[in-house]
């Protein structure tokens, strides 16, 4: 949230203030991000250095000023002491006259010495304009000292009156003169000190304002620089972010425009190139998909044409076959009257082979449909017994011709079943036809049993059987491109594949138990009630 708020402020600043232009200008500077960042850090460092130096200068200046103030203060102090010492001299002189003692006289001299040393000190540091006054103090002081020496001698000699006269007459006026001069010095020094203090105060005030301004300006400059530099990098990054979101959503037509002439600008150029390339690839792919769709459509049409062709061919082939088989049957049924008995066998051969040809045609058509995935079941209610009966009707003459036993047993009580009766019949005819074909003697037996919801059909023969290595591939040989099955079984390979497909479309399975030389049993199981037909 705070981030968004910050962004809001930044957005405001970027769009409503000259900062936006500045950011743009920085972005347009032809320099690498590295150089720009170095410059920014260097500039801020420079600001810190300048601020630090100015602070040091102010501190030094203040120190000097306060030292001068201290000096002035000392001068004032000394001049006060001078005042004090003068007073003490006068005081001790009066005291010596009263006490008339040598010790008191010595005190005057001592105080006198102190006065001299103080004045010497003041003189040392005093500016030249004060030297005249100090010189006068010296002169008067020397005169005073001479006078004090006289007074001391007179006191020692006991000439108190004279001493008194001297003191009151000359001494006092000398002291007054010195006092005046000393007062003048005190006044001067005090005045100087006050000036110094005032100027120091003023300097402090100025320094405070100056330093605050410098620091404020530095902070503002640093912030400004930070803002400009960071947004000159952030803006293209945000644009790149938006750009990439578009690309991620699959919109390859967007481009990114940034004013930057640095690495970010180069990055934006790369992104635009990437986007163009993606757009091109996407369009190519779309075109390819359209082409593919067109090809698919063509293939679909071709496949449809093929199916229609097959359907037509089926009928076209069937029509002459119908005539051939029809006429043969009419002849055999003696519709045209009697025929020479020795023609019966070849006529029957024509009929048998004609029926075989029709079955082959049907198988090839069925297989084409299965391969094309267009085979569909036509589901309906049926009676299992009817299926077995039609198989028996179709094949009993063949069994009879070969002298084979032909038994068909349907378990009693099987309810009405549901499935494609015609296809199931076809499957059973295929298996039974094969069984009859490969059995030379013995019998062929069809059985149908119910196990719960499953019907199990089986066809058992006493024929040549199948070797174990062929059992596995017998239902798939043709599909795997192995033509040997077709050769070995004389074309019936097709029938087994078709049978397997129909059974699986019913949701069932087919398997075989066989022993070479002893015969085979083909089984298939299908649900009593098939579900919706599964496309092959």
């Amino acid at each position, binding site marked *: 949230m705070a981030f968004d708020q910050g962004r809001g402020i930044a957005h405001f600043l970027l769009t409503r203030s000259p900062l936006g232009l500045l950011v743009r200008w920085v972005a347009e500077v032809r320099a690498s991000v590295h150089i720009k960042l170095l410059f920014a850090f260097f500039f801020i460092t420079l600001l810190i250095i300048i601020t630090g130096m100015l602070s040091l200068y102010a501190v030094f200046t203040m120190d000097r000023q306060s030292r001068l103030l201290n000096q002035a203060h000392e001068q004032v102090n000394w001049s006060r002491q001078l005042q004090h010492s003068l007073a003490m001299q006068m005081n001790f002189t009066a005291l010596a006259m009263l006490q008339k003692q040598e010790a008191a006289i010595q005190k005057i001299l001592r105080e006198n010495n102190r006065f001299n040393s103080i004045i010497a000190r003041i003189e040392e540091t005093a500016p030249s304009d004060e030297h005249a006054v100090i010189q006068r103090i010296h002169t008067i002081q020397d005169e005073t000292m001479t006078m004090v020496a006289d007074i001391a001698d007179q006191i020692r000699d006991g000439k108190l009156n004279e001493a008194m006269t001297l003191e009151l007459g000359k001494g006092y006026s000398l002291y007054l003169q010195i006092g005046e001069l000393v007062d003048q010095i005190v006044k001067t020094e005090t005045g100087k000190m006050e000036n110094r203090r005032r100027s120091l105060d003023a300097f402090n005030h100025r320094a405070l304002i100056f330093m605050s301004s410098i620091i404020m300006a530095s902070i503002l400059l640093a912030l400004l620089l930070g803002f400009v530099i960071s947004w000159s990098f952030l803006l293209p990054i945000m644009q790149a972010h938006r750009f990439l979101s578009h690309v991620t959503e699959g919109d390859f037509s967007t481009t990114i425009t940034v004013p930057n002439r640095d690495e970010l600008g180069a990055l934006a150029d790369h992104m635009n190139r990437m986007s163009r390339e993606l757009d091109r690839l996407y369009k190519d792919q779309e075109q390819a998909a359209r082409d593919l769709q067109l090809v698919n459509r063509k293939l679909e049409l071709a496949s449809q044409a093929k199916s229609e062709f097959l359907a037509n061919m089926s009928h076209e082939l*069937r*029509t002459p076959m*119908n*005539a051939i088989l*029809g006429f043969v049957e*009419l002849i055999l*049924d003696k519709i045209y009257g009697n025929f020479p008995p020795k023609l019966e066998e070849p006529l029957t051969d024509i009929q048998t082979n004609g029926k075989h040809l*029709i079955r082959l045609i049907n198988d090839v058509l069925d297989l084409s449909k299965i391969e094309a995935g267009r085979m569909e079941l036509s589901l309906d209610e049926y009676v299992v017994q009817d299926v077995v009966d039609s198989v028996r009707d179709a094949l009993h003459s063949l069994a009879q011709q070969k002298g084979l036993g032909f038994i068909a047993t349907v378990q009693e009580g099987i309810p009405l079943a549901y499935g494609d009766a015609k296809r199931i019949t076809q499957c059973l005819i295929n298996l039974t036809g094969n069984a009859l074909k490969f059995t030379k003697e013995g019998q062929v037996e069809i059985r149908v049993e119910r196990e719960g919801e499953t019907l199990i059909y089986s066809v058992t023969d006493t024929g040549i059987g199948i070797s174990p290595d062929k059992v596995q591939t017998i239902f798939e040989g043709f599909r795997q491109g192995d033509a040997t099955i077709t050769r070995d079984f004389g074309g019936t390979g097709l029938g087994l594949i078709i049978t397997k497909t129909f059974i699986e479309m019913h949701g069932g399975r087919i398997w075989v138990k066989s022993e070479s030389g002893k015969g085979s049993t083909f089984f298939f199981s299908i649900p009593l009630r098939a579900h919706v037909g599964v496309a092959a």
Partner: protein
Amino acid sequence: MTGKTVLCVEDNAFNRKIVRDLLATTSYRLIEASDGEMGVATALRETPDLILIDIQMPKLNGLEATRMLRADSKTAHIPIIVITSFALSGDEKKAMDAGASAYIAKPYSPRELLAQIHKLLPEA
């Protein structure tokens, strides 16, 4: 001899001949048409007692012809046997949906065809 009339609509002359030769041994009177359009026209004109029609024919196929005959009050009641193709799954259903009374798959046995005709239209 004024037997019952059977109309055979079939584009193949040999197959028409089979029907002709087959019915020659019976009391049925045969009239023939060689395409769907002609078949419908003949049926409306002659109102036969039974119609035998091939499912695949030029101009008008057997299913459409059957539908048209069923839609017309003059021919709506006439039994129609449609000759279908075994390999094309669903032909039988289409034939029955179009209004056929029965169907027989090509190649058919003339014997079976006659049995079908007898079932729908007894000779006597």
